[in-house]
């Protein structure tokens, strides 16, 4: 389970460019502790492993009869969701409650936000209620950065998904899942399959996998669903699913949103499933002990066959379970950084 051996990247794998100082200036304290969690990019390996280790201790606790600890008693956490979410919001809520925090769920449809107060006004009003942490989801990339930049000192911001940019806790729970099942990242081949272009999950996963020195990170998609210069994120690009799945240890399937047909990214769900759907037959191309993951909600028959989603390789439901522990870990760490 431990992952402390540092090995160089496999020859030929593109590594991340040196992360700039800025993301960390915002999300880390001067002594390197996590103050906000906005993006995985730029975090160092030790910090990522610390988060995963902390999550591990919460996971053990979550398997016991009494799951609640008083770590964040008296703290108020606001789930500020400008975009619909079930899984992420409920697991954040549960994580906060298991840490004994008070939780406020605020769902704001963007249309009413446009009519009424600005994002900053919303923020200021909530700050006036003396909250300690914002968990933010918004359809626009950079919103968590924006809020972190303008929030009062002492308030932590956790990014629960901003546009196409980042979804760091999802990536962390995915890393947690992989580590629990596979251990050492340096020996792994991981394929991320589907709509990379629009996926904040994929971006955060790619950063996390590279920071953890994963042997090989692949993305598999038609060219119309790949962002420009995606290889510069440190991935190998495949346009053919069969080739991309060859011998991989982990397959991460991404959700295909139906509106992609309307904007001419794809001709039809039917053709997409024929070419990029994960079926039992294709799964056999991967390593025999391959994990199948999906951030949910899965479109059965569009990107994944039901038999695979529910099959022995699938860890999709465990991802949800682990999501609580990982979010507990992040929440306790950012509040700890503020108190120190």
């Amino acid at each position, binding site marked *: 389970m431990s992952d402390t051996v540092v090995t160089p990247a496999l020859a030929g794998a593109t590594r991340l460019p040196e992360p*700039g100082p*800025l*993301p960390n200036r*915002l999300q880390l304290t001067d002594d390197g502790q996590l103050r906000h969690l906005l993006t995985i*990019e730029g975090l160092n390996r030790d910090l990522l492993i610390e988060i995963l280790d902390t999550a591990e201790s919460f996971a053990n606790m979550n398997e016991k009869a009494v799951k609640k600890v008083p770590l964040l008693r008296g703290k108020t956490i606001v789930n500020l969701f400008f975009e619909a979410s079930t899984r992420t919001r409920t697991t954040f809520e549960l994580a906060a409650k298991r840490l004994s925090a008070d939780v406020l769920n605020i769902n704001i449809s963007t249309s009413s936000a446009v009519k009424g107060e*600005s*994002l*900053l006004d919303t923020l200021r009003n909530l700050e006036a209620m003396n909250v300690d942490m914002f968990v933010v989801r*918004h359809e*626009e*990339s*950079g*919103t968590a*950065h*924006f809020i972190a930049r*303008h929030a009062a000192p002492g308030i932590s911001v956790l990014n629960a998904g*901003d*546009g*196409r*940019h*980042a979804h760091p806790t999802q990536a962390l729970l995915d890393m947690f899942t992989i580590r629990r099942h596979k251990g050492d990242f340096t020996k792994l081949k991981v394929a991320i399959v589907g709509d990379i272009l629009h996926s*904040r999950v994929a*971006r955060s996963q790619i950063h996390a996998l590279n920071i953890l020195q994963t042997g090989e990170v692949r993305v598999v998609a038609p060219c119309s669903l790949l*962002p*420009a*210069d*995606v290889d*510069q*994120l440190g991935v190998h690009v495949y346009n053919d699913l069969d080739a991309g799945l060859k011998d991989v240890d982990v397959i991460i399937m991404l959700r295909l949103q139906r509106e992609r047909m309307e904007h001419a990214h794809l001709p039809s769900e039917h053709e997409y499933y024929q070419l990029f759907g994960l079926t039992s037959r294709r799964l056999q191309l991967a390593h025999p002990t391959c994990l199948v993951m999906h951030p949910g909600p899965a479109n059965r028959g569009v990107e994944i066959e039901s038999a695979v989603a529910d099959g022995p390789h699938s860890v999709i439901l465990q991802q949800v379970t682990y999501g609580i522990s990982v979010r507990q870990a992040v929440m306790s760490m950012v509040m700890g950084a503020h108190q120190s």
Partner: protein
Amino acid sequence: MSVLIENVRIIDPADDYDEVGALCLQGAEILARGQVPDGFEPRRRIDGTGLWVFPGLIDLSARMREPGEEHKATIASETLAAARGGITSVVIPPDTDPPIDSPAEIELIARRARQACGVRVYTLGALTQRLEGQQLAEMAALQQAGARGVSNAHKPLSSLLVLRRALEYATTFGLTTVLPAQDLSLTGSGCMHEGAVSTRLGLSGIPEAAETAALGAILALVEQTGARVHVARLSTRRGAEMIAKARAEGLPISADVAAHQLFLTEVDVAEFDPNGHVIPPLRAQRDRDGLREAVARGDISAICSDHQPHEADAKLGPFASTEPGISALETLLPLTLRLVEDGLLSLGDALARVTSGPAEILGFEQGRLGAGARADFVLYDPAALQEVRQLDWLSSGRNSPFFGWTFSGQVRETWVAGRPAWTQPTKGNTE
């Protein structure tokens, strides 16, 4: 009034003049350049020792937000900022509110300009009515009212056929058509350059082809119609190469670039800095270098500010929902002269890109200092140092990515029509 500026280095790129001597003004005009004419009895003498004088800058694109968006800026506030930046003539694009599609708006702007600090304010008329891209605007009336050219700003034309007819009609009156090269369908919801940085930030990208595809169509129609076209705000290396080739073939086409495009790149958008949000977007390093080369060669013959002042709220939000644009009047001259320090081009050539170059594009008389020219000029102290600071910023728009930058040299005085429009306050003598 007659004025003599003595012992000053006179740089007049219109005819490659660069000598230390005297500049004599009579009323609103230059009486003599170099030697003092016999019998000239100036009412005022200025010692220009150690100073430079060069023509006032002509800025081909500065939005002053009036009429319609006075909460952002006004002609009064922005002409003062222009004067401080050594700019003596500005051109306002037609996308005011209401747009400049009738003589009424041109007259309103002229009236406001007369009440301001003296900087000359010009307009581009709308190419189509209400800038809707369908029916042609009354270009002859606009020209008679004073419009220096016609443009549809960043608003789309409904088809290439409308563009063709508009070019033909504008040619009837010898009007230059000013067109940004931007295909709006390829731009889509894009808010920054499409490339590695947009991929990393998860922001919608604007591909290079949004510029080059539009430019291809423009060049084809210039070739077809023979119309005189000025391409506004190039942003790509490839676009600059297309312009160079078209000029070499003798097409009646010119181009400009915004000064910030010669210094900033997509990297300046990270991490979601709204001051890096401009249209066309800041592009890759190789684009910036390509634009610089085109400026040095003269294929891009004008550098403009592309001034777009905003109120603070317009830049407060997640990146894509902030309004694009930089408040840039006060940094046009410092950035242009920085190109000289960078070894890209000579002082004369750099000044040509902001004086005689733009003058030629829209047919202005000013932009030179020879005898009989308009007395629009900058008295400049090359030894001064200035830091770009919010504290003494004059534009109402505080949206500049250049705060904190330090430049050598400073405008001492800006004169328009033989009268000072701006004088740099000396220490202990703030105006």
